């Protein structure tokens, strides 16, 4: 009876795993077939107004890059604070809040930024999009930094203190250096996580058909344009959406794999 139950549970979990993987494979295969058939090198040379994706890719990367510039330092410093300096309830509160923030629905973050930035500034902008993405990024970076720092043995901190170094010097010279690879990987994965987001951008940056570097205006976004294009009736638009999805997926995949590659080799 026990053996039977064991086999049953094993079979059930294998089946569940297979179902999950099958759907993932299905998505990827469809994406690759439809994406590659619509893919053309000219997509990188033209803007959306001329049937290309150049402005969207540049725009998406710029929004994500600015979000990283805001989110990574804030998240890292907060993570260092709760692991190295924060004590008791206050640090625990920040840690819990950050855990909750990680799973906050991204559309809610978009709506929040819409209310506090887009409305007061009188319109959507690349900046608003970046801020929305950085809000998503901060808790991820806090959690990674926190957990990577927790892996640094306390003896290493004590050894630094025992040589006469002050606490902040030990943290900067020794602790962060020890956790560097882990933190970098975490940051890269956080970037991969936000670069493909749509919901936070939907009513913050919106998107634009033209090439732009002016982040105070509505800003071209690959993900939001995929959403728009997929809703168009013409086949050409939907093909473009497939190609864009394909490029986006490859981008995220490459960043993810790079992150994992670094951890495997150095971690």
């Amino acid at each position, binding site marked *: 009876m026990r053996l039977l139950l064991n086999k049953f549970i094993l079979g059930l979990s294998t089946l569940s795993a297979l179902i999950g993987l099958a759907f993932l494979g299905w998505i990827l295969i469809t994406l690759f077939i439809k994406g590659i058939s619509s893919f053309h090198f000219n997509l990188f040379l033209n803007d959306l107004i001329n049937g290309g994706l150049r402005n969207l890719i540049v725009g998406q990367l710029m929004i994500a890059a600015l979000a990283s510039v805001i989110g990574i330092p804030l998240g890292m410093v907060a993570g260092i604070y709760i692991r190295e300096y924060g004590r008791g309830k206050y640090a625990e509160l920040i840690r819990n809040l950050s855990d909750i923030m990680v799973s906050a629905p991204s559309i809610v973050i978009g709506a929040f930024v819409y209310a506090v930035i887009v409305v007061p500034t009188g319109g959507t902008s690349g900046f608003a999009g970046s801020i929305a993405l950085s809000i998503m990024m901060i808790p991820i970076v806090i959690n990674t930094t926190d957990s990577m720092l927790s892996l640094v043995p306390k003896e*290493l*901190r004590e050894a630094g203190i025992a*040589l*006469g*170094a002050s606490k902040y010097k030990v943290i900067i*010279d*020794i602790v962060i*250096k020890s956790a560097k690879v882990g933190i970098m990987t975490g940051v890269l994965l956080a970037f991969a996580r936000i670069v493909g987001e749509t919901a936070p951008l939907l009513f913050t940056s919106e998107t634009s058909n033209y090439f732009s570097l002016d982040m105070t205006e509505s800003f071209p976004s690959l993900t939001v344009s995929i959403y728009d294009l997929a809703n168009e009736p013409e086949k050409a638009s939907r093909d473009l959406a497939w190609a864009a999805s394909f490029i986006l997926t490859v981008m995220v995949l490459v960043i993810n794999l790079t992150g994992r590659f670094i951890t495997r080799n150095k971690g």
Partner: protein
Amino acid sequence: MIMNIKKFSFTYPGAPAPSLQNINLPIEKNKITALIGPSGCGKSTLLRAMNRIHDLYPGNLYDGEIELLNSETNTMENILDIKKENEFIELRQKVGMIFQKPTPFPMSIFDNVAYGLKIAGIKDKSELAEKVETALKGSALWGEVKDRLNESAMGLSGGQQQRLCIARAVAVKPDLLLFDEPTSALDPISTGAIEELLVELKKDISIAIVTHNMQQASRISDYTAFMYLGDLVEFDKTETIFLNPNQKQTEDYITGRFG
């Protein structure tokens, strides 16, 4: 005498009772003083009070006095009075510490040894190089690492890493070095090398060592303190402790009847 511990008691944050009670212990100059006793007797706690590394975690209660010799004025100063950050830094430059597990920093071999020197304010490159070389020679590591000073210290073996940590601590010329079971994570050959090194080091530096290994204490130390349940049971010359102890408890522990 380099350090004199008088009526010292210590309580960890939130603990209902003190972990150390009424400890009186002199640490003699240019001698090795061993602290022995069963696990949980407080020997590491006592050692960690001698450079106040406990203060990394707030809320400890100190009572009594730990006097450290100020070699410039030749007077004894109570290190439990220290409150300011720069005084702590000074204290730890005078009283170094080596841990159970080797703790190389994630940087080159050279930078590891130079770390304490740089903190002490030495910037001149040739002076740094000279002091690093002296420290590595003094720790019997120079021959093994002189061709790879710029390589990461993480690539060294456990025994080499521990000698590197000793070199790093010796480089800043401390008056007193505290060793917290420095060989318990090492193989017998590395242990032998470190023991020889300690005996060599005591010419310049006073040493206090916590050890679980009674043979080690009898081999290298000049004085031995036996501790049990937070009390210092007996302190004397190592020969006396091992051959002719005063207290029955000491004898029982030395002969392996408990602990």
